């Protein structure tokens, strides 16, 4: 089975897609490798949060996603 990576907000445009399926399990380095260099650069920046299975991770570098989990990449929300 697989882990689904979701690109939210402007990251969707940067990734060129809305979602991506990868092999489980998925950790932080696996994530950085899977999303392509542009999204990986954004991910490394502090302001992008990562949610796994519906919870925002306090420390995204400790990502540990299993079979069937959804990993959402959450850029800062918009102002205005």
């Amino acid at each position, binding site marked *: 089975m697989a882990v689904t990576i*979701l690109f*939210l*907000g*402007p990251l969707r*445009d940067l990734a060129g897609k809305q979602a991506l399926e990868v092999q489980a399990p998925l950790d932080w380095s696996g994530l950085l490798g899977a999303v392509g260099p542009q999204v990986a650069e954004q991910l490394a920046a502090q*302001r992008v949060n990562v*949610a796994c299975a*519906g919870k*925002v991770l306090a420390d995204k570098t400790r990502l540990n996603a299993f079979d069937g989990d*959804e990993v*959402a990449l*959450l*850029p*800062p*929300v*918009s*102002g*205005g």
Partner: protein
Amino acid sequence: MVARITIDTPLDVRLLDKGLSVGEALAAFNAAHGEAGGVVSFLGKVRPDGDVRALELSHYEPLTLPAMRELTETARDQFALDGALVWHRIGVMTPGEAIVLVATAARHRRDAFAAADYLMDHLKSAAWLWKREKRADGWHWIEPRGQDHEDIARWE
């Protein structure tokens, strides 16, 4: 007025993918809180700014609604509310359309005002919503801005 909307829970939190009828929503909220001395509402609409033709709000379902509910519960406890309504549009909207409707009912006026103000200041960061605008040259994502952090800092 025929009430086509009924509110039967003290905290009514919704994400709506279609237009909302503000008058009916507020009439229903008032009816649900007949004993509250004061009811405050805030309605935020898409402003017809420059050449903005449309606005799209996208969100992440598993986080947005739970976060809005949690925020609303915090507001209820902090300001002794009888009830609150927090409705947020998602999807594509045009200028003049409602984006957000917040209403608070409390025994005392000051609490109802403070709670509505608090909810609006915290909603944007709690709600995990991303916004983009359609202008003559296509869609543009709206960046986060410092004002939001200042708005929240008022309450700390």
